């Protein structure tokens, strides 16, 4: 393994989790943890999970160690569950003020989830195969299926809210966009893994999941630091509204 590769590999594994520590701290100081409790727990869980994995890695002297495998599996399952919780949190944040839309949005989300589940099962069936380590192959197939469902749900939420002219608050958009990058990059990674790659290409591809996670953490941090932009004031001025009001009164 080249020296630079080893450095990048470790950097992309450690750096996002170091940066992630800042997210719950900023959320707490800005009292955002009350509005996004699941995302807040997720950031803490991911940090703790990383410490456990890193400890297991150091104790087992490498990623192939048995202890690391089980710690990775347990933390991955918790992480997947929390990510679904975050999508639900985003859904509530967008639609809770619009009771007329909640019903149709819930029903549409259920249908989309059903269709994505079918797509995930078909993909798992198409790409399943025995590996040297059946447990890790199973985890990989499960993670891929979850990435399909989560990326699909996020895309659906983005499009559905656009269809009704609803804008996402900055931080909600940041959370969603961060996860969207991570899930899509995971899909790109797994689909490229299915192709016949050279050893060098495989090594480079291994950097994609951690690299995309790094980008996601930067997106969360960026949107947290940027705060909420005032939208309404700059978009319509009083003379324009007067003209508009006149048009409306005439149309009544």
């Amino acid at each position, binding site marked *: 393994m080249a020296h630079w590769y080893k450095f990048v590999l470790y950097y992309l594994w450690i750096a996002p989790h170091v940066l992630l520590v800042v997210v719950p701290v900023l959320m707490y100081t800005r009292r955002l943890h009350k509005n996004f409790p699941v995302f807040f727990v997720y950031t803490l869980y991911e940090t703790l999970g990383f410490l456990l994995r890193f400890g297991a890695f150091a104790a087992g002297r490498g990623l192939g160690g048995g202890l690391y495998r089980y710690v990775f599996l347990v933390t991955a399952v918790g992480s997947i569950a929390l990510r679904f919780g975050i999508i639900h949190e985003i859904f509530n944040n967008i639609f809770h003020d619009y009771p007329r839309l909640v019903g149709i949005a819930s029903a549409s989300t259920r249908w989309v989830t059903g269709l994505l589940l079918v797509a995930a099962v078909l993909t798992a069936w198409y790409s399943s195969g025995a590996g040297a380590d059946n447990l890790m192959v199973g985890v990989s197939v499960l993670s891929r299926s979850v990435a399909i469902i989560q990326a699909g749900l996020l895309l659906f939420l983005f499009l559905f809210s656009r269809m009704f*002219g609803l804008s996402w*608050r900055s931080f909600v958009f940041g959370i969603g966009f961060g996860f969207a990058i991570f899930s899509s990059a995971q899909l790109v990674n797994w689909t490229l893994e299915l192709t016949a790659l050279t050893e060098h290409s495989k090594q480079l591809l291994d950097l994609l999941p951690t690299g995309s996670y790094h980008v996601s953490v930067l997106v969360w941090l960026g949107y947290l630091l940027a705060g909420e932009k005032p939208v*309404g004031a700059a978009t319509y001025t009083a003379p324009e509204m007067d003209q*508009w009001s006149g*048009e409306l009164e005439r*149309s009544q």
Partner: protein
Amino acid sequence: MTMTLLFVLIAFVLLLSFAYLAMRRGRDLPNVDQALTAIRSLDIEAFRNLVDPEEEAFLRARLPVAEFKKIKRERARVALAYVRALSRASLQFARLGDAARRSPDPAIAASGKQIADSAIYLRLRALDAGAQLMLSAAFPSLDLHRARSLVQQYDRATYLLIQHNVLTRAHGRAA
């Protein structure tokens, strides 16, 4: 190999779609000009007549069946164009309401929420009416009159916008 290529393509399209939506976000601000154009393009009285069940009953009673079906198809197509314009206007109303909802002034924020809620309902009704009119154009013998409630919803949304403008001006003067 073809399937793998397809998966790679889907994954990349997904990634690009998210990037596109993130870039578009800044440009999806409420546009008064577009809303004005949408309102100007609407002749609500003409639309009201097009979806009036009494007028339809009158035509049905006076015209031969084949002639009536032909005219009903044409009326449904024209009404569909109005519904599309209404739908576009409702989207602009919703954006304006959603933006006003974030106002630090509680009265303006409450008014914005009402506008957005009303505009969302208008858009839902427009989507429903659009589907009904398409069915009506395809099968003129079907009796569908849901488009009429769309006019009442449009009146409510525009009334709320006028009220909102009055409120904004009053608060502007007070400030």
